[in-house]
């Protein structure tokens, strides 16, 4: 019988299970995504230790690696402050962290890894974290009446006909955020796998141009969009003048 629709057996962009164990009676797998995530974490930890050592003996006039670290922090802070204003000081740590994490994840396709963000199990938690951040801050900085007024928004608060539709649009936020990044990175992964799998020896050197688009450009844009949308949603959930 058909084993699949694929033309060639060399095309491989799926997630593979490496190690199976049982977790309270469930069959659970350690997959290649976990391994890639651990490699990404390793890169980030090494970078963090190096940055820490560079900053602990920082000089007034920055040199070498200290320059790079300061530039990264400055740009990330700039991005957060220009979008969220003074309220951003509560979120620059989180936004900076997920920015660097997602960026390294998306770029890891260049290292020959399967990008961890091409696994829906990685992007959905990121979207869910955004969802909870938005709503925790909404309830923290708004009165309950205002939240209710927001949920029934185009009609007056005593006529909650639009409530279900507004609720659906609230729950669509994490789904669309995570699906967007997942589908973007997955499409790049699939495209590169098809090119390498089907063209075989003909795919030398020139796929670098495609890597530049699918991995670097697309990955960086999606990282930026994810952080930007997270910030915008959080900012829209709190009153404008919140510090």
């Amino acid at each position, binding site marked *: 019988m*058909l084993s699949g629709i694929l033309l060639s057996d060399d095309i491989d962009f799926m997630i593979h299970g490496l190690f199976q164990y049982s977790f309270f009676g469930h069959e659970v797998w350690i997959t290649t995504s976990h391994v890639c995530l651990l490699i990404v974490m390793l890169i980030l930890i090494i970078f963090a230790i190096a940055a820490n050592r560079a900053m602990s003996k920082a000089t007034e006039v920055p040199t070498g690696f200290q320059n790079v670290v300061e530039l990264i922090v400055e740009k990330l802070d700039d991005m957060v402050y220009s979008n969220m204003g003074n309220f951003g000081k509560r979120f620059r740590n989180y936004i900076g962290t997920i920015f660097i994490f997602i960026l390294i994840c998306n770029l890891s396709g260049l290292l020959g890894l399967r990008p961890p963000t091409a696994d829906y199990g990685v992007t959905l938690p990121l979207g869910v974290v955004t969802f909870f951040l938005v709503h925790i801050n909404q309830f923290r900085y708004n009165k309950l009446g205002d939240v209710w007024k927001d949920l029934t928004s185009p009609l007056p608060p005593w006529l909650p006909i639009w409530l279900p539709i507004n609720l659906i649009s609230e729950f669509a936020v994490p789904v*669309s955020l995570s*699906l*967007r990044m997942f*589908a973007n990175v997955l*499409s790049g992964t699939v495209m590169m796998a098809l090119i390498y799998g089907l063209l075989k020896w003909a795919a030398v050197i020139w796929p670098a141009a495609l890597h530049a688009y699918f991995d670097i450009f697309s990955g960086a*844009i999606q990282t930026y*969009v994810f952080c930007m*949308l997270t910030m915008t949603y959080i900012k829209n959930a709190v009153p404008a003048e919140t510090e």
Partner: protein
Amino acid sequence: MDFNENFIYGCSAIGAGLAVIAGIGPGVGQGIAAGHGAAAVGRNPGARSEIMSTMLLGQAVAETTGLYGLLVAMLLMFVKPFKG
């Protein structure tokens, strides 16, 4: 109803092809965004970087619907929900 497996695979492939027609919408949308972005840069060259980042953000969001089509195609081709 009883269909054989090859028929289901064939229909899944046709469905996947139809699903990626969703790409038309984002294509038009991104083109419009890029056109307006170019016009804005022409009118106000000083704000080039800001216009660029806003345009790219809008385009990336507009791309989502096309990617949903792509996802449906992927599911039909590789996850095979209608295996029977």
